[in-house]
């Protein structure tokens, strides 16, 4: 079904009531930045001022890891960003809003406002606790905040009231079923439901594979309760296995609102419509193909 992807996700974001939205990918090159641009573009069209940052590095012309070309971020005037001072474009000048005490991989972080449209690179703080403070600051500077996240840094979601969009694609898997299993495991984990009372076994700290194995050995039938889904340190099949056999619940659920798919990878491609359709069926969430501008379910 044809759809205006950015607008559709923006609508879901608005309905979630969250001020900030994290885009979390199942891996590298799965269309996170493309999804971010689509949502950002929709905000601009609606006249909503946005603040943007990332966990680590994003928006550079080429992937630092594999030198593959990456989509760049063209930002419109009034957009607020949190990025490393060293990667701000020299010209046109940005309005510097504040120096911060936070460090990024490329030096100190600054808050800036775009005055004339230009391509920007986002390098945010790499640590979850600092990122949460940055997001709080950005929410005070703009009505909406978009964060380019990372699957290995979901700890940054802890303690927040963010909406979450998960991106998956051919870039992070060899086969379509592998990609679907990966995104399903991540979604199952992030959408851990709220504990609503009853008998429970509370887990302080991370719910690791070793703890899950022990709980299964003990035949645990009570709800296994973690503080929030970021404490569930399980991925892939281990996560699916654990959720199938245990009643895993959390005290502070996260708000996953949609999935984006990118059927194009550097080394291969999936058939776009069946990929989007299967991801929708596996996750039960609205799925958007940002390249095909289609809504799958």
């Amino acid at each position, binding site marked *: 079904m044809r759809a205006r992807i950015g607008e559709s996700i923006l609508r879901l974001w608005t309905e979630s009531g969250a001020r900030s939205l994290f885009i979390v990918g199942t891996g590298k090159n799965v269309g996170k930045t493309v999804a971010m641009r689509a949502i950002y573009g929709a905000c601009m069209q609606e006249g909503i001022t946005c603040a943007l940052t990332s966990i680590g590095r994003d928006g550079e012309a080429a992937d630092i890891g594999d030198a593959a070309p990456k989509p760049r971020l063209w930002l419109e005037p009034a957009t607020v960003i949190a990025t490393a001072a060293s990667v701000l474009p020299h010209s046109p000048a940005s309005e510097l809003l504040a120096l911060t005490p936070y460090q990024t991989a490329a030096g100190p972080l600054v808050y800036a406002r775009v005055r004339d449209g230009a391509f920007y690179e986002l390098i945010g703080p790499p640590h979850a606790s600092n990122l949460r403070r940055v997001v709080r600051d950005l929410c005070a500077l703009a009505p909406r905040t978009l964060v380019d996240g990372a699957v290995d840094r979901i700890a940054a979601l802890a303690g927040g009231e963010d909406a979450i969009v998960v991106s998956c694609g051919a870039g992070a898997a060899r086969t379509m079923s592998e990609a679907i299993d990966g995104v399903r495991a991540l979604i199952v984990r992030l959408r851990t439901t709220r504990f609503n009372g009853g008998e429970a076994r509370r887990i302080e700290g991370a719910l690791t594979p070793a703890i899950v194995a022990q709980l299964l050995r003990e035949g645990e039938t009570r709800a296994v309760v973690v503080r929030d889904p970021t404490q569930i340190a399980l991925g892939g099949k281990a996560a699916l296995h654990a959720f199938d056999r245990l009643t895993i619940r959390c005290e502070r659920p996260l708000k996953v609102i949609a999935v984006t798919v990118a059927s*194009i990878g550097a080394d291969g*491609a999936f058939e776009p419509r069946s990929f989007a359709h299967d991801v929708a069926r596996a996750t039960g969430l609205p799925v958007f193909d940002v390249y095909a501008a289609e809504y799958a379910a």
Partner: protein
Amino acid sequence: MNAAGLLDGISAQAIGFAWLRDAVAPAGVYGDAQFGAIVPFVPGQEDEARERAARICRVASVLEPSSLDEVRDVARNVPDASAAVARASMGDPLDDVALLELQRFFDACERLDALTIHCDDLPRTLGEPVRICARILEAGRAGQLGFYLDERFDASLGSSRETLARAQAEYESARGRASAAVAAALDREISLPEFIVMRGDLRGPVPAGVRVVRETPTYLLCELDADDAVLAALRRRDEAAVAVAGAEALVRERLSGVIRANATALDAAMRAFGEVDVLAAAARFTQQHRCTVARLEPSATLVLDSARFLPLEVELQREGRACTPIDLDLAGVAVLTGPNMGGKSAALRTCGFAAVCAAFGLPVPAQRARLGLFADIAWLGIGSDAERDGSLLSSFAREVVQLRDVLARDARPRLVLIDEFARTTTPREGKALVVAAIERLRELGACGLVATHLGGVAEAAGTRHFAVRGLRGILKAPPDEDLGRALETLAASMDYTLEEVSGDRVREADAIALASLLGIDARVIDAAYRAMEPE
């Protein structure tokens, strides 16, 4: 604050030098730069050291604690603009972040000078050259904490940016038209430079204005192809961007030139800022710990009135307990005796701590103090094991090696604090060694305090003898054998003050009573008392 030359590592640890360094550490980057270079005053600099301590005390008396805390807040939050000044002075044009750092520094200088205006002992940071630099950056102030290369710096910025905005709008319009045409031909949204076209959706060839960048069996990955109108608009946009970059570079060059011309004054302002930070930290320390200016003499003396060892006092305060100050009048070498846990080590540390404070020109935690400016402060004995070197030396051998090194150092006057040296060898030989060490230290003109449980040392060495007054009564073990309560009982029963005793009157160490208090089996205690009875 660098104690090398005054204290070796073991002595620094025993005397609490790291604690002191942390307690007087400045809050910000400019203070840090100066703090690392602070070294102890040396004998002959008594007046300078005393003047520094007196200056700190004057600052502490003129400025309220809240004002000093605010000074430290300002110092803590100021960015380091020294690199910006250095770059400008070498002819580098500064970027906007560097200009913002400078503006924040100027703001901090203004705030700092306002906070310390009534204190003549602190330098001013804002001279006329700094004001000139601050004024010229004022046009870039954006909000309370921000900076922007605003049109107010130069009208050409405004005009070139307007041209760029127009060119950008024209480019977007041209591109939008091309994009809309493709979207209409494909009947889909085109919002990204790259997009997928399903082969099954194509009713004929790929429309004009679309470039295929990758083909798969089921779809094509495409890009918008720029037509002549888009390319021309893009060219105009790029030219306008170059013009903006040129105008901005000229303004940055001009601002950097002003910074370059005033670099010497700015460096001086940063040094003054650092000095205020360092002195404010020391003044706050003085207020918090009720310190006083010591009288410094060119002699090996140490006279303390109600002196406290601050690391211990702070720890006790945390537990809701009070620290007992000590009085001591020491010239030359003396012996200190007293019961176990009676505060002999704390007394030695109090002496060392006061001497280190004085050496760095800091007020001393005492009601009154008169002491020499020591060239060397050494600690021997208990506590020396802290720096084990992994060698095969025994405790005794390590102590002897340390004593050898201390005696070999050529430093006058020196303060030597010895805590139960030679306690791990036979009492007879231990005593002989301690007596011999005291005699050698006396020959070297040292000031020293030698704590020991060995009897007859003071008399044999012919020194003065101080003793901890000790237990006021008979200790009773708390019924529940709780260690914390036992220590409270001990503290309540112990008089930690020192008295000078005549001859070689050595009190018992109250060791058996203490062992009983700490919960040793009553049968063991009884047996110990029986063993003490004369045969």
